[in-house]
């Protein structure tokens, strides 16, 4: 009941609200993606790359000091150890192999913090494909290291100067590029957003996270499910991957943590599920932060990766049906959680993942509860922010 239906909807959320110029491109993708994803030779190519190139499976690490601190059994799913430093590459590997099979020659992507941009530029270098990354000018300036990486990898990075010059605007510009190159170009969307079939496709590519979790928990604990999974949520790709194989497992509580920014009672927030209304943005119907007039609100979060006014349709559906519990962590709570993990476990998390960790203090656990936190990325890219605030 949590799968996408044949029309591309998760409950009332989803669909493909795209200009006519993209219809044929998206329709072809829609008609072919499942068959390609299920093709054994495709799976073999992707799995091989995930193993030898990305470094999967990512470890499931029992964080003993953190567990003691919170009075439960905390396991960290170490997506931060992947090549390029986050879960994003699970998806870009899948999409680039798919793009090749569809005969596309030109790759475009949007990026906020730059993690998805780097992961896309990386696979384009690997596959020798032209790569164009749209990135808000504000983000270009605050994530300079990732911009340099993308350029070194051979990608063209276009700073976007419309709107607030962040992720939402970068996505608009990528969509416009796509409208202008509807035949040769494959748009590698970085999260579980965009028109159908992207939300479902990205979820499938990220589902390797929970697939491994099942095996790892079975080996470590003799049971393949945890009591809780915590994941941060902007567009929702790491959470979708961490939840995927547990969507129909009633013994596992799914906790999504949004970015509250300066607080969900302020104007500076990115908590789209908690504060959004049904609307349409970037090709799908979901919960969107917007004014009464339907203008999209510029979100705010200390974390560039969560700084997005919408959320993937899967997550809107999970929240509305009560399958997931949605919490919000403020900038300050995320920074505290980041410092805690750093000092207790010697792991510097990405600011996005720090929001997931901040969820730990909001839940009352029993000592025997098994809690998996999806550590979606590492903190290298956030060192400037950490040094400024801590």
């Amino acid at each position, binding site marked *: 009941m949590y799968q996408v239906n044949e029309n591309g909807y998760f409950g009332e959320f989803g669909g493909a609200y795209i*200009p*006519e110029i993209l219809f*044929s491109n998206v329709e072809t993708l829609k008609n072919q993606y499942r068959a390609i994803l299920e093709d054994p030779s495709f799976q073999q190519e992707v799995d091989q790359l995930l193993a030898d190139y990305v470094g999967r499976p990512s470890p499931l690490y029992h964080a003993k000091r953190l567990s003691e601190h919170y009075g439960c059994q905390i396991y960290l799913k170490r997506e931060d150890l992947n090549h390029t430093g986050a879960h994003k590459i699970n998806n870009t590997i899948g999409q680039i192999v798919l793009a090749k099979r569809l005969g596309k020659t030109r790759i475009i992507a949007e990026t906020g913090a730059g993690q998805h941009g780097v992961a896309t530029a990386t696979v384009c270098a690997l596959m020798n494909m032209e790569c164009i990354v749209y990135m808000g000018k504000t983000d270009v300036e605050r994530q300079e290291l990732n911009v340099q990486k993308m350029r070194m990898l051979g990608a063209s990075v276009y700073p976007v100067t419309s709107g607030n010059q962040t992720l939402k605007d970068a996505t608009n510009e990528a*969509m416009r590029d796509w*409208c202008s190159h509807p035949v040769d170009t494959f748009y590698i969307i970085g999260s579980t957003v965009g028109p159908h079939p992207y939300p479902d496709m990205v979820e499938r590519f990220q589902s390797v996270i929970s697939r491994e979790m099942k095996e790892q928990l079975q080996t470590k604990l003799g049971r393949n499910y945890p009591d809780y999974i915590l994941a941060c949520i902007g567009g929702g790709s790491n959470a979708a991957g961490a939840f995927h194989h547990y969507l129909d497992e009633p013994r596992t509580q799914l906790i999504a943590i949004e970015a509250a920014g300066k607080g969900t009672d302020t104007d500076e927030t990115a908590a789209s599920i908690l504060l959004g209304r049904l609307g349409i943005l970037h090709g799908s119907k979901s919960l*969107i932060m917007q004014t009464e007039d*339907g203008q*999209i609100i510029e979100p705010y979060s200390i974390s560039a990766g969560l700084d997005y006014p919408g959320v993937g349709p899967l997550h809107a559906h999970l929240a509305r049906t009560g399958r997931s519990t949605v919490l919000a962590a403020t900038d300050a709570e995320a920074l505290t959680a980041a410092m805690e993990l750093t000092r207790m476990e010697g792991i510097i998390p990405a600011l996005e993942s720090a929001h997931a960790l901040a969820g730990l203090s909001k839940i009352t656990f029993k000592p025997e509860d098994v809690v998996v936190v999806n550590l979606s990325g590492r903190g290298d890219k956030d060192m400037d922010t950490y040094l400024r605030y801590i």
Partner: protein
Amino acid sequence: MKTRIQQLFENKHSNITSVYYTAGFPQPDATRPILKALQDKGIDLVEIGIPFSDPMADGPVIQASSHQAISEGMNLKKLFEQLEGMRTEIHIPVILMGYVNVIMQFGIEAFCKACTQVGVDGVILPDLPMHDYLEAYKPIMDAYGLSMVLLITPETSTERILEIDKNTDSFIYMVSSAATTGAQTAFDAKKQDYFQRIHAMNLKNPCLIGFGISNKATYDAACKNAQGAIIGSRFITCLRQHPNDYAQAVDALLKQLQQ
């Protein structure tokens, strides 16, 4: 009874000039005077853009006009207030063009009702796919006597064009090229082939070509291959150059279409 749009195409078969502008630009109260100026200068059909913060199909010129209008407080409610009573002086067809989210928040039924009340004839929603239109919007729009103008592009299959033609009762908006809105200097041979291919299909609905019409070459190409042309970004640029004299802005546009 024939609609205003149908009457226009019945009375005029070629060189139909349709102009787009953004509601609330260059001033919040400019909507009505611009409409009047366009009619006075002989424009056949007008499309008024409902500003949206994230216009996926628009290039930089229309984006900028939309953002300015929004920041100065323009919204759909104000637009309907401005159009209230327009039929005492405006006899040309008026179409509203916008993105689905804004209509959805206003309420589709309330939107259709308001359109009919002020005398709007049709609607263009570039991010509403045909299937969703047929299922969720058409019954309501039909009940209010509003026409939906659907778009076709160089990527639209013949089969789909025929379906769009079947479900249209006004005209077809033929997008000139794979692009967002904005000026182009000429249409290359490939685009001309596409124009001729559609022309040869003998659709039941008339077609207007839009996107990239900015000068004599592009305007003439549109008029040669369809019943006329739709001009948007170029007029916004003219309004920017003549922000206080709308008649002069229209003159500037008409002059550019002959150069």
